[in-house]
């Protein structure tokens, strides 16, 4: 009897402990979002969203908005995510469809992705910068896109790889038993089944790309004007936050919080979009 009581007590205690930790984490999170929201929402108006800074390099102190950074971030991260996706999807298909499970090569590739995932983004930036010096290229949207794509590549590949591994083996066997080639199976069945998961992988990659400040500092530069060409520098939201919060002027610091809020909203919007897309594509899937 007492043993049972002890077990029930244990159970209750553990439940309480989990709850305490959960609440702590949730509160921290809500507090952080709350502060950013309260501070940022004050500067959120039409002018901020629709205009580039009127005057002053890096500043916008004398009016204007942060459209340069919003557009710059979107162009750069969307393009980088598409590029990284185009490269990593064939790579993970190769890993999962053509290579054997015990392939040493596949293990090596996966290990490399894990290592690359952990490489700090400033290292990507520095590497990109080195290549640019070698090519006598100046900071530009294009350079930013390429470097951010490389930053996202291991993340998207590794997440998509995990998703493809979960596609039931029997599904591949069925397709092959109908006389399909590996390629037809990969495209028509495996990718289809894994599609929602791959969207998630792209989203995680996008999140990393859009929030990165270090790699774009070296490669995409910064500018007060709206993005106009692949070969010109662009502004990005994380760098805008960095520069704006770094000034001693309250109006500018205010803009920094607004930029942070917008960055969060962009990520929120993209997650909602991908979730609803996932639902659309999930209707035929096996579960």
């Amino acid at each position: 009897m007492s043993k049972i009581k002890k077990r029930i007590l244990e159970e209750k205690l553990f439940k309480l402990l989990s709850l305490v930790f959960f609440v702590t984490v949730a509160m921290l999170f809500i507090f952080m979002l709350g502060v950013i929201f309260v501070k940022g929402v004050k500067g959120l108006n039409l002018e901020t969203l629709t205009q580039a800074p009127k005057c002053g390099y890096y500043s916008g102190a004398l009016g204007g908005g942060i459209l340069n950074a919003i557009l710059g971030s979107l162009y750069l991260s969307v393009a980088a995510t598409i590029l990284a996706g185009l490269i990593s999807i064939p790579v993970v298909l190769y890993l999962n469809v053509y290579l054997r499970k015990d392939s040493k090569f596949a293990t090596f590739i996966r290990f490399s992705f894990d290592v690359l995932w952990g490489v700090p983004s400033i290292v990507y930036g520095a590497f990109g910068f080195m290549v640019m010096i070698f090519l006598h290229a100046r900071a530009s949207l294009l350079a930013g896109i390429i470097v951010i794509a490389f930053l996202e590549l291991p993340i998207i590949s590794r997440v998509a790889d995990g998703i493809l591994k979960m596609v039931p083996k029997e599904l591949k066997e069925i397709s092959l038993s109908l006389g399909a080639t590996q390629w037809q199976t990969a495209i028509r069945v495996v990718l289809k089944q894994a599609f929602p998961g791959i969207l998630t992988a792209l989203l995680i990659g996008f999140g990393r790309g859009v929030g990165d400040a270090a790699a774009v500092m070296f490669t995409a530069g910064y500018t007060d004007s709206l993005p106009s060409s692949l070969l010109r520098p662009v502004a990005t939201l994380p760098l805008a936050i960095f520069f704006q919060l770094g000034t001693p002027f309250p109006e500018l610091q205010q803009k920094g919080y607004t930029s942070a809020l917008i960055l969060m909203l962009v990520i929120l919007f993209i997650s909602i979009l991908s979730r609803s897309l996932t639902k659309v594509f999930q209707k035929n899937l096996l579960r």
Partner: protein
Amino acid sequence: MDKGSISTKFLNVFYAEHQALKDVSVDIPKQKITAIIGPSGCGKSTLLKVFNRLIDLNEDTKVSGQVLVDGINIYDKATDIYSLRKKMGLLAQRPFVLPMSILENVAYGLRIHNHLGNNKIDELVEHYLREANLWNEVKDRLHASASKLSIGQQQRLCLARGLAVEPEIILGDEPTSALDPLSSERIEKKLIELKNRYTIVIVTHNIAQAMKLADFVIFLYYGEVVETGKSEDIFKAPQELMTQAYIKGEYLDNIWLEREAKISRRIGQGEGI
């Protein structure tokens, strides 16, 4: 027409160190139902996978000996593995529908092998769904997801999908073991109907099913063929002690060990292999 026969000669299959099939030499006649019976893990499913070479997907597998389909060795280097698999429809243990609509499931094989217009596809899909006795249940929701069907309907969809690539041979790996009795019976009836046109090989645990369906029976135990023959002979007058015991549902291991011992004694006495 001499299409759809399978025979194996001294077929051995190894998974790494484990020998899954041992000197299997059997003949599977065309346009009959052949049942492969035997307890779990005796190599029945392996034998099916050898026939359509899905075994190639397993790692660390070695296949030796000959497997002749329509008189041609399918383990020859020149074998076109895709046409071989097209020749063999597979009904798996659990129905696995493809992640697409009902219509696209049946159309999958058609689209892979031919370039057909949509009208032709629709026509063929209807034909094969009727063939699998599913048409009436799904004709109003052809574009609905196949995963919404009941498991019995899914298995019939799998049958329609397999028939659509116009195979000569249907391989069933315990095709009714996941189904309720009613659905099982529908599949069984269908298989009997189909045997005039297709060679059918089914793996089954279910002796009653084997008796009901099979014209020929292959009894495997630990990867070896114990006995083969016409269904009546095997079930009414089995020659081997093992077969008698298995059909009665008796424990087999002791008899097996005795048999092994006898064989090794014989070999020891110089009778040769």
